[in-house]
């Protein structure tokens, strides 16, 4: 557990990524609002093949036809006509930080990305509003055939593999927001790891919204071929504006036989961002998929990373941390579909609500008939830090096979006054003591994060405590 850093208590604003970049001079700004012409225009700017234009238009029809979800969080304030669907600062992704426009590079410098890349990443991608502005992967991996490019570049350069998988895990008509993403997607990462290749260090993508009322719709496709492994990390931040932005990503992951993918998210959007994301993976026999999903920021997050265990002995895990401060609603969880025998899964969820914050765990475990000896364990714990905080747990289970072991347990608790009293008697402030308790609570998941993120995570929690306690 990281000890609190006294220097941090000097920072008045607990969201340190809230600046915006006034110097940005966009190359393309499509005017606000959405219609079929906007969809076509995005496709045209990107010089896409006809099949993609058609797919976008079809997805747009699905988006139009579907009602807005009425469950989960409050989506009534989203005005799809008051959003910029395409804003881009540059026309190509570069491979050297020196070639990134100065003002964007300064943003990434502030976020510490180039530094991190040198130290401990195998590759980095940076997306600024609609387009990927930077992408680089270590040469040795490139030589082994690992592809790590922006998704638009993936479509242009690797059309066959792209077309084979795109939209097969999350079809355009899956839900309203997946349809929206398919219609207007831009950016994201396209990753292919060849058979037997292990990418030892994480690949990282950094998503930044800069423009007010921006909609960011990145689309990520990861294919881990047989026996390969990769760890992908994404981080997200945005300026603090008075009006809302929308982030609606789609992430599709294909884990082939014996492969392993870990996907880690540190979601720290500012508190004016609606974060409505569809993430899903398929896992073939003996494959392993792990979602490590940390949701700290945003106004409302609705996100339930899913794992379809399609082959025997496939294994899936969802590790989820949700932190909701004043006015935030984190509606997060995970779904596991057992569709083959001897498949196993684990969902661990830790959620913390503070002030008027609300966390909801929403999860599904489904076992199809014939999936003998499937095992699943779901463990949800919620911690409530104030008497106005709210926590919900919606664990769905559909079990159609006898020979299984499926269990779900959940607890909701508050920070005990005895615990606080004890720590404060040892000289800690209330905020520090609460921070320590919260950090202890999420520790089982934080220890799964790369070290730098674990430190960052604990720091963010501590900052939030400063803002709210005492």
């Amino acid at each position, binding site marked *: 557990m990281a000890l609190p850093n006294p220097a941090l208590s000097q920072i008045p604003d607990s969201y340190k990524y809230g600046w915006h970049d006034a110097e940005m001079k966009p190359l393309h700004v499509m005017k606000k609002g959405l219609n079929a012409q906007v969809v076509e225009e995005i496709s045209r700017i990107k010089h896409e093949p006809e099949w993609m234009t058609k797919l976008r238009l079809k997805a747009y029809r699905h988006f139009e036809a579907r009602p807005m979800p009425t469950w989960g969080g409050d989506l009534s304030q989203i005005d799809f006509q008051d959003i910029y669907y395409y804003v881009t600062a540059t026309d190509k992704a570069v491979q050297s930080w020196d070639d990134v426009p100065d003002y964007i590079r300064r943003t990434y410098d502030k976020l510490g990305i180039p530094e991190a890349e040198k130290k401990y990443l195998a590759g980095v991608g940076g997306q600024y509003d609609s387009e990927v502005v930077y992408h680089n992967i270590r040469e040795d991996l490139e030589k082994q055939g690992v592809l790590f490019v922006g998704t638009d570049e993936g479509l242009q350069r690797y059309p066959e593999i792209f077309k084979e998988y795109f939209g097969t895990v999350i079809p355009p008509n899956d839900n309203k927001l997946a349809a929206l993403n398919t219609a207007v997607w831009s950016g994201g990462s396209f990753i292919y790891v060849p058979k037997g290749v292990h990418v030892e260090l994480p690949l990282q993508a950094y998503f930044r919204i800069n423009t007010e009322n921006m909609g960011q719709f990145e689309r990520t496709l990861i294919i881990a071929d047989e026996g390969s492994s990769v760890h992908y990390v994404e981080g997200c931040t945005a300026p603090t504006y008075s009006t809302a932005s929308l982030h609606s990503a789609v992430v599709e992951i294909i884990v082939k036989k014996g492969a392993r993918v870990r996907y880690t998210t540190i979601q720290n959007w500012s508190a004016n961002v609606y974060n409505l994301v569809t993430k*899903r993976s398929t896992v073939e026999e003996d494959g392993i998929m792990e979602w490590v999903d940390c949701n700290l920021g945003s106004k409302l997050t609705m996100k339930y990373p899913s794992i379809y265990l399609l082959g025997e002995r496939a294994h899936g895990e969802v590790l989820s941390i949700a932190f909701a401060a004043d006015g935030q609603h984190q509606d997060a969880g995970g779904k596991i579909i057992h569709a083959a025998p001897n498949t196993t899964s684990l969902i661990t969820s830790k959620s913390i609500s503070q002030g008027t914050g609300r966390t909801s765990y929403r999860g599904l475990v489904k076992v199809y008939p014939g999936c003998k000896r499937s095992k699943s364990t779901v463990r949800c714990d919620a911690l*409530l830090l104030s008497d106005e905080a709210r926590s919900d747990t919606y664990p769905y*289970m559909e079990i159609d096979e*006898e020979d299984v072991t499926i269990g779900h347990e959940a607890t909701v608790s508050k920070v005990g006054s005895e615990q606080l009293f004890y720590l404060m008697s040892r000289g800690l402030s209330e905020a520090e003591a609460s921070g320590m308790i919260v950090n202890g609570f999420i520790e089982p998941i934080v220890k799964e994060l790369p070290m730098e993120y674990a430190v960052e995570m604990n720091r963010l929690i501590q900052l939030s405590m400063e803002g709210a306690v005492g």
Partner: protein
Amino acid sequence: MTVRSEATRLDLDAILAVSEANREPDWLRELRRAWWQRAEATPWPTGKEEEWRRTSLERLPRDVDLLLDPPRAEIRLDESLAANGVVFADLRDAVHAHPDLVRRALSAPDATTHDAPDAAEHPLQSVGSGEWGPGVTEFDSHDKFWALAHAAWTGGTFLYVPADVAVDDALLARSIVDRGNVAYFPLTLVLAEHGARVTLLDEHRSPDGEPVWFGGVVDIRSGREAYVRYANLQRLGDATWNIGAQRVEVGPSADVTTLNAEIGSAVTKVGLDVRMTGDGGTSRVLGLLAAGDDQHIDINAFQDLAASHVTSDLLYLSALYERARAAFYGVTKVRSYAKQTSSYQECRNLLLSPEAGAEPIPVLEIETNDILRCGHGATAGAIDPVQLFYAQTRGLRPDEAERMIVRGFFEQVVHQIDSEPIKVRVLEALAGRIGTADVIEGVA
């Protein structure tokens, strides 16, 4: 074969005719009329509501006659208790003998018994595989059946226990639907005044083979420090659709345990609504399901912790044979103003056949951090093979071993039944599926 006449259709005319035939007082006739209007104004569940997604009413036998004159419930009451003011009678008789008490016990459509601060959050429908069903704050969609039964009841059981009167022995009421092709909406009303103590077994049966729409409604109200034990033994016939609703109001420092033993019926869909409205109240909500064939049992439970220092624990156990399917969708809600509450919700399913299925969904909605204890658990799976093996090493055949293990599993609820006669009846009713106690005793 009876000729279907206009008078037996489920409509207002038939209901008013029932009222007339029973020479009911004006207020009751008007109450029925008001409930009928409410029922008419309340839409049928569409199947999109979260708690109705797992049971379709498409094949509900709606086109059957209203059962106009069901046999009177088998009821016995000690004279000394009657002398103390205890009333235990068929509801039709109670209406005449104790109109004021019945009037108090019968809910009215215009009365709201508790606040609904979250009405605005009400769920709509869910669509899309990437999407979810809504969270439920209250099971409003059972209101249709609550209203129908209050309009169209033609029999039922009435139990009143005055303040500080203790009924030591369990009271038993048995109601039998004596023919098929009918719709029957019995009401069970229990009013336990402050400090009253009472235990009631409420048993329901209907014939096999012929469709019955059974819409039983149970309304239990307990006053301050009342002690109520209520067991509902559902032994309906194999073609009966049991669409019921139960409401339990737990008063200040009252202690109420309900048990639903679901044994019969083709389809059972019951909404349990446990309202912890008095400070310091305690409730236990117990369930035993033993189902086979193509039985479909779907329970919704709503534990509403709306007062401080209350405790509410739910435990539902299912043993599922053949192609039986059990769904459980329960919500524990802790209101923002309820301090220092304790609650637990537990649903465990033993799958005893490859074709059995379970959907246990225990939901928590917690609006305050001032809680002592809150949690839930759900499991589904086959019998632990190690247990089975162990039992067989003790000389049991595999089928005997299985029954013994199921009985051991049920024991978690059975041991909480503190009335011996009720325990015996429940075990007898379960014996058809899980065998008799001899098996266990033989081993022990």
